[in-house]
């Protein structure tokens, strides 16, 4: 693994300490090992990450500088209710607490971090610059003894080698600070980073804050790749090209500075058949909601059992009725209805399995 040129300093923050001018203190979940900064009265509440254990005060390994930027919550509680209502719609045999009300009751606002990296980059670069150009082609049609000509303009790319030197400074390159950042983003969709504001302690409110579990030395390879991508994009611009490929840079990094960007997130959950919480995430800026919308197999079995029991009773009564001549016809109809109900009764048993098989993390974009 490539080492960060300058490993930034971090320090232990004791449970009773409040870093960065906040009234929050470090706490952790003994089960999922997540570390948060929470308000003192949030200690002992269920962990907003795994929803299985309670938060306990514990020291945290934190950078001394406060976060640099914050993307604020744009979706308020009213929006959230609508988002959750639309998320829970259309699931038959859902868990008892898979309702907008229940999800809303469990919801917790959380800020999760990304690293913001500033760096000077110097080095030699080379690549193939692609320039768009237009070519005139023709389509000729012959009809009733006459030719009709039509010009067709195509855009093609001319690739030419380019090289040179780069000495640039890059500010606020975003780099994941959580090991499950990618999974989280798949559920939340993109954030509009251009709408972030400078950090102020007052912006955090009652939200909990997730503490990075990827320290800069571990996040550095991703940061270096992001810096190189930014440099490649600028080399393309410098060359006046529309495209760039086969890009190579021999970079020297200096003046590295690591700060944090906080992104808004609502986390909630509902309970699966096995009693485990099933998390639901809502992007606090855009309202994109992600998570599995599971049906309850247990409820399916229960409904199926009731329907099959009714079917059995109908068949039994029908058979009895069938041997009594005045109501024989009614008995036969009851037997037939019983068989039909028995067949229908299979559906609730099978449906949750079929529905859950086809479940992919669903994104609902709020209006």
């Amino acid at each position, binding site marked *: 693994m490539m080492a960060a040129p300058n490993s930034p300093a971090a320090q232990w923050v004791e449970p009773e300490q409040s870093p960065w001018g906040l009234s929050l203190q470090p706490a952790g979940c003994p089960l999922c090992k997540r570390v948060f900064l929470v308000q003192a009265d949030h200690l002992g509440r269920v962990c907003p990450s795994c929803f299985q254990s309670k938060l306990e005060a514990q020291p945290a390994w934190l950078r001394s500088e406060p976060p640099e930027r914050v993307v604020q919550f744009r979706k308020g509680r009213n929006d959230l209710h609508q988002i959750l209502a639309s998320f829970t719609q259309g699931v038959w045999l859902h868990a008892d607490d898979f309702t907008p009300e229940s999800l809303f009751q469990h919801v917790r606002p959380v800020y999760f971090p990304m690293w913001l990296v500033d760096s000077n980059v110097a080095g030699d670069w080379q690549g193939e610059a692609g320039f768009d150009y*237009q070519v005139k*082609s023709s389509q*000729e049609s*012959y009809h009733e003894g006459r030719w009709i000509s039509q010009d067709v303009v195509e855009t093609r790319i001319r690739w030419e080698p380019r090289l040179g030197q*780069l000495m640039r400074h890059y500010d606020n390159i975003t780099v994941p600070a959580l090991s499950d950042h990618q999974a989280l983003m798949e559920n939340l969709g993109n954030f509009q980073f251009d709408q972030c504001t400078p950090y102020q302690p007052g912006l955090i409110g009652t939200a909990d804050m997730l503490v990075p579990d990827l320290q800069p030395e571990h996040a550095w390879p991703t940061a270096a790749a992001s810096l190189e991508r930014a440099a490649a994009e600028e*080399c393309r611009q410098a060359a*006046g090209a529309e495209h760039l490929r086969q890009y190579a840079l021999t970079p020297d990094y200096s003046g590295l500075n690591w700060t944090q960007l906080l992104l808004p997130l609502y986390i909630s959950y509902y309970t699966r058949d096995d009693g485990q919480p099933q998390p639901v995430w809502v992007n606090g800026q855009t309202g994109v909601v992600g998570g599995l919308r599971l049906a309850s197999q247990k409820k399916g079995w229960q409904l199926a059992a009731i329907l099959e029991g009714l079917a059995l009773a109908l068949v039994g009564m029908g058979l009895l009725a069938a041997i009594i001549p005045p109501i024989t016809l009614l008995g036969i109809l009851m037997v037939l209805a019983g068989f039909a109900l028995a067949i229908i009764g299979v559906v609730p048993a099978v449906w949750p399995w079929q529905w859950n098989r086809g479940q992919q993390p669903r994104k609902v974009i709020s209006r």
Partner: protein
Amino acid sequence: MAIHSPQGSQWQSPSGYQPVRSALEGITVYAPRTKTTEDIVSVEYKCPKCGATTQYDVAAGGIACEHCGYVALVSGKKVGRQAEEFEFTLNTLKQAQQGWGTAHQLLHCDSCGAEILNPPGALTMTCPFCASNQVGIRAEAPSNALKPNTLIPFKVTPEMTRARAGEWLGKGWFHPQELASNAVIDRFSGIYLSFWTFAAQINSKWKAEVGYERTEREYDFSRKEWRTRMVIDWRWENGQVGINLADLLVPGNSRVSWVILEKLYPFNLNELVAYAPDFLAGWQAQAYDVSLPDAWEQGKTIMRDRAKSACRSDIHSIHVRNFSMMADFADESWRYSLLPVYLAAYKFENKVYQVMVNGQTGATAGQKPVGWWKLWLAIAGLLSPGVMVGLAGLLLLVVVIGIIPVIMGVVLFAIGGFISLKLYQQAVASEAA
């Protein structure tokens, strides 16, 4: 954000690269060095031994001095049909519209210092004061791509041209017998003429009603016999044909007769060499005055007709109606080359006629006067059998059997008329330029 400009650094760009404009401060950009118009300068030809003017000698295959016998062989890089081709970019087409300009160019003779007005489009010059040969493609061309980048060197020597022309003048029965002996041919001027060569892949889709012959038997009740007749069954058909056309030549000079020029074809384009000014030393060379878009229109017309022929030959019947097609051009490319031609004029009975010789193959073509009395005699001879047999038939009509000679006379007259018409067209074409 630039941290500081790298201009002052010790970094050395690789050889063959040159700095180009960078749109961002803090990033330098180098691109492969390209030949600019300034790189191509006028070349003066003087003998390194005696200082006399030198020129390209076809027989010697190099730059030769007539005075002291000095010869420097010219070995042009043979590129043949693989010579670089260009696409029809909008940019090139726009530039090509400008042509080489029409203004006369003031050229400076490096040898004697004279300032000479050169006619438009002339790529070479012989100084009228010191007779030194100059070759230079000037910056007048709108872009490098629109300068000739290939040529075929002269293979036929000026001495051979007179014999070729004499031989050509003696050919053909309907020309005056004394043409070969009495024609006064001026000096043949060797000139490199501009040609555009075009290539394209044409994918065509055709649709037509195709008729298939079928014989049908039917009973004729009036004659009480079976008769056979041919009927045509029509049905809609369609198909696709792809043709690849390469190296289609279109002349780039409008001041020479294209009719005569096309009779000099083909040029062996496998002999194309990369442009080198040495081949032009002491020879005339003319830049194009038919612009690329205009020439391409000509080329496209020829190409689409070939595509149409290919589609028609895809139909396996002679009966076709409602034929339509769509020709999709792809991978169109062009090349600008100089090809060698000798031009001359000759006088015969106080009239001036043009003659040209292919400088590579020796093929000769031009205008030839026609001995019209010979032609009219021939036409009379061709028509007379029909007329006579027809007249005889008319006389014999009185005794009924004349109908057969009349029909024979008409047939013979038609055949004679057809051949006469062809001869007449040939004769007119022979005199036309």
